[in-house]
């Protein structure tokens, strides 16, 4: 679901897709783990039972709760 400016939510990404981060909610752990503006991330996998979403950033793998992926904005 593209918005006018080509931005969409991380929760709308498909497995295996990659995108560039536009904005992340304020949380002290995002920046040190590489979830920062202008970083390219890849959605590695989603887990069942509303489990976490696995992201690949700079060759590191980060797991984030599904509910917070609705607050991360990305673009192609």
């Amino acid at each position, binding site marked *: 679901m593209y918005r006018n400016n080509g931005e969409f939510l991380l929760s709308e990404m498909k497995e295996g897709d990659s995108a560039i981060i536009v904005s992340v909610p304020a949380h*002290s*752990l995002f*920046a040190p*783990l*590489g979830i920062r503006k202008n970083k390219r991330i890849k959605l590695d996998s989603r887990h069942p039972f509303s489990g976490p979403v*696995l992201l690949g950033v700079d060759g*590191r*793998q980060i*797991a984030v709760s599904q509910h*917070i992926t609705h607050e991360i904005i990305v673009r192609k």
Partner: protein
Amino acid sequence: MNKKVLLIGLPNVGKSVIFNKLTGINTGVANYAGTTVEYTVGKMISNFGDITIIDVPGCYTLDVSNEAERVAVEMLNSKPDVVVCVLDANCLESSIYLMMQVLQKGLPVIGVLNRVDIVGYRRGKKRRRFKSGSISAKRSNNDSSRCYCVKKCNCCQGLDQDLTNKNFTLEKEYPIDIQVLGKELGTMIIPMVATKAKGIAELKAEISNIISSKPTNQKGQGFIHRDADWTQAERIVTKIYHQKEHDDNKIRKRLEQMIIKPYPGLIIAFFTLTVTFAIIIGLGMSIRRFLLLPFFSSFVFPAIISLVELLLSEGFFRNVLIGEYGFLIKGIEWPIALVLPYVVSFYFALSLLEDSGYLPRLGILLDGILNKIGLSGANIIPIILGYGCTIPAIASTRAMNTKKERLIVVTMVSLSVPCISQTGVFITLLAERSVIIVLALFVFSLLAAIGTGYVSNLILKGSRVPLTITEVPVLLAPDLSVLGKKVWVRLKSFLAGGAVIMFYVIFVTSVLYESGIFQVVGRVMAPIVENLLRLPQEASVPLVLGIIRRELVVLPLLEMELSSLQLLTGSVVGLFYVPCIAVVTMIAKEFGWKIAGSIFIVTILVSFSIGGLIAFIGNLIV
């Protein structure tokens, strides 16, 4: 006054390994974030006297957004003589960011680039080999230690010629340009593979150097007035990588993906846990049956018994030594021949899981399900530690985000997770009757743990769904010598702690038992023990002992002639009964006496009511 050195760095970068190598102390080491929750202090012996080394809990920034960061900032402000900043070659950006923040404090800083050996795997670059002759050229000039210093320092004196010849540094082996990194940060950077002790001698030499001469050029003054920011860190990282192409280590990558994806990850998880369970039971049983039991029952105990019988005539004193609770027999048999084998097998299996980096992956697989009971996947680690001992489990909850999560896990672990000592007794007690009872008991304990989590999630205030933001560590093959050391450390602490306490408790019990005091207690507790739980009156002794040590609720049942139903009742009571006195004290220290008291009362009530229920239903059926 002693000189003070801080070890600081991101979580899970190997600070504790470096600490152990510098001081010779063995602190807990594992492959997941947050192993060091409290800081550890040790001593390094040097030519300038003892140097105090402090292992600061791992933190991502110095923004004081959690407990670990608060501790770290406090320690940096306490005027240390040297700060060793451990950088992780795997996540350079975050490491560099943290180091920039550390440099702003204006203290003498040494950078250590750890895990230079696995960077190739994660970053997708093949390791480069040494150029032939590069190292040997240097060695001929310096017989002591290698030097990787970027700037001139004392340990490089006489090596100026080679210093200009860039060929000899370790960097040739790895795709990171360590010299450029050092120049950018304005400090020296020592490449290191801490687990293989590479680079440790250099670090020691450099610490001594700074402490003896206090050179000012190590302060990285360029950063004092500059803001640490992520664009800077990103720029430095792009600058120091030799090559940019990504050719991944295929097998490791594929395995990492397989383990963490729901399919086949959950199947692998089931298989892994089954194997772990099998190792714990199989290895423990074998050590007991084939090694310790024959040794004690055919050599040690007959010798003790005949010696005591020779010296003492029948009566009170002889019974205290070798009678029903004779502490010379039970005080050795129970801790050493019964519990110890399972301590060894449990920590062997746990260390395999810890060092490989499997536990955080298991946490992620179970995160969604655990969310339903108010926990996050990361909480699986304290719970699994709890199957070993409740004390480290509670200690590791300190790294958790919310107090609610901590309380849920502490309640779960105190109430329904048996420690390995208890498990060892359950296995010995029940497996001889039937292995199915053992399995049933564990399934029961698992269900109870889930139930406990569910109920406490409903009762306790706080947000319902916890937030997970965590890094998945690199999957590593466990190092056998590290593994052996870890098991040895746990074994030593069991012998010095648990086993000694058990020995004393059994001694006091033996005196109380032989003097008839416990028989009085038995009559007082008869309504509960005989009427409710339908156990013999003498089973009240273990219920009193169980308050001191968890496994003692069940151990004495071994000696009583009990029916299978009574065994099950006794085991279930033991499972839910009060955690050790040490655990209650620790809960009080961490959360206050009100919560410790509630846990104490809840465990007694739950254990008696469920035990009573089993006895009641069982007697209807049988």
